[in-house]
């Protein structure tokens, strides 16, 4: 066999090894781009030049506008607490939040119960339900006593964690 063939094979082998490495790295991009880490809303700085009441009014208007688009939420986003930024898709059968490792959103929070709260779906929309937790679940500042409808943008507080429904 000629010297040329062997040289070609030799460099071809090195090239193929690196092509393999990069194709594996290409498959791994999912690890970086496949996960949605959503920025916390509260970290967006208040716009200068607007007074507090103006800002609040603007936020209210935004909220109303969001509600007007009556599409349903698809994601649960943690907006405050140790897991801030985590996002996970809501599932129709129910998403359990708590400290139990079997829960969908596993909280590392001393103030949360094992199975703390559940968000599930009925014909109209999403329903949040407290699963008899010790410290309670708060929807927009009010403690949940019965399963209650949650809309996009309303905040659910569990221990030190605040979660929000997003589209």
């Amino acid at each position, binding site marked *: 066999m000629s010297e040329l063939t062997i040289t070609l094979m030799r460099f071809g082998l090195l090239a193929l090894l690196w092509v393999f490495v990069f194709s594996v790295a290409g498959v791994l991009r999912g690890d970086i781009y496949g996960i*949605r880490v959503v920025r916390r809303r509260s970290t967006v700085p208040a716009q200068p030049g607007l007074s507090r009441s103006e800002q609040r009014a603007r936020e209210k208007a935004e909220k109303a506008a969001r509600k007007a688009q009556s599409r349903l939420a698809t994601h649960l986003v943690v907006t405050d607490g140790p897991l801030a930024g985590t996002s996970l898709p809501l599932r129709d059968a129910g998403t359990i939040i708590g400290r139990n490792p079997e829960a969908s959103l596993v909280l590392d929070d001393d103030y949360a119960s094992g199975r703390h709260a559940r968000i599930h779906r009925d014909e109209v929309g999403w329903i949040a339900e407290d699963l008899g937790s010790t410290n309670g679940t708060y929807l927009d500042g009010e403690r949940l006593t019965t399963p209650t409808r949650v809309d996009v943008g309303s905040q659910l507080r569990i221990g030190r964690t605040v979660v929000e429904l997003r589209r």
Partner: protein
Amino acid sequence: MTAVAPARVRKGRGIELVLLLFAVGIVTLAYCNVELAVNDALPPNLLVQVGWLLGVALAFHLVLRWRASYADPILLPLATLLNGLGLVMIHRLDLAHGRDLGSSLALRQLIWTAVSVVVALVVLVVLRDHRVLRRYTWTFGLGGFVLLLLPLAPGIGRAVNGSRIWIGLGPFTFQPGEIAKITLAIFFAAYLVTTRDALSVAGRKVLGLTLPRGRDLGPIVVVWLLSVGVLVFESDLGTSLLFFGIFVAMLYLATERISWIVIGLLLFCVGAYVAYLMFGHVQTRVLLWLHTFSPEALKASDQLAKGIMGMASGGMFGTGLGNGRPDITYFAESDFIFSSFGEELGLIGVFAILMLYVLFVERGLRTALGTRDGFGKLLAAGLSFSVALQCFVVVGGVTRVIPLTGLTLPFLSYGGSSLLANWTLVALLLRISDQARRPEPDPGVRPSSSSEETQVVKLR
């Protein structure tokens, strides 16, 4: 613990198959390259030999489709490629030494590959949930310590090249430390997941470092004594470093306290220094490491020097497979296989191989991140860290970063026990990753759940 949700779950079995064929293709090219360079002709039984590797890999792939369909798609192709490249290099050294089929090391390595894959598949099929392993915490722990100390037992222990890390049963020799790596990782994971709360209780703060309480130092001292014992009586720094390193890393993972790493490193330095002062064989290793090319060191062993000269002659692109002289170094197919690759594939080639290990370890750690139970997290992270540390010890040894020790490079080096242990390790990682990537089962509607009070449950 955190919940990180991928946007959509892909099983990835198709990607795995493509990468697997790609890996076998690379191995085939390398094999043809060796044969053409050495014998000037393609091997007559090319298809048979490549067919074996392909068959073994495809069998693994099919079992994954059947029993762990959400398992990580990258681990299997990486392991197959490394194993195949190792086979090619061992075959190339067979040719250089003129070994025929009967004494061929490559054939034995191929048989061991098949045996190891079968064992790994049995593990995958039998073990449906890795959490079952937790039930046998102390069995694994005791088994691991016995395996580690087995080479010291009179009668079956064998000292090869000054290191007493082998056991011989009739014609078979075995390195039990390789298997102990896995059983001890299981034991450490199961032990630490139950005791981590106690171990992470802070004691005094010294120089900005929160030290643990004195009474919590027990476990680390026990493992330290064991690893110093291995260093002294089996005269094997590599195994000693590997076990102590795995324990300290998992302790850190479980407790999130940097002070454990500091304590561990200090303890290891003290142990290693005392061993250096007291034992001649440790001093020889250090002499070979620091003054490799001095006359005294060359008189003791010129193995390391030859390995380094080989890598130097390889340069950037290597001499090409079959054109170098890696066979001059003793143990070029096991301890020094990295030097052999350095000589024939060059810096570019060995960096590709190191990247394969990096990707392998990355997949293991990613599995640990994705798993939602604490035991699985610790086990996956511990196993992948053990692969990383073993690569560091071996590659660091042949490139004179640390003293040379007799460990094998996972998948690449010649050695049945190493292959068996590492394929089993792959099976365990795949099993955990299957659980990590599988979408959660529906919790279902539990009508009574809203009326239940949260209870304090005591597990122990």
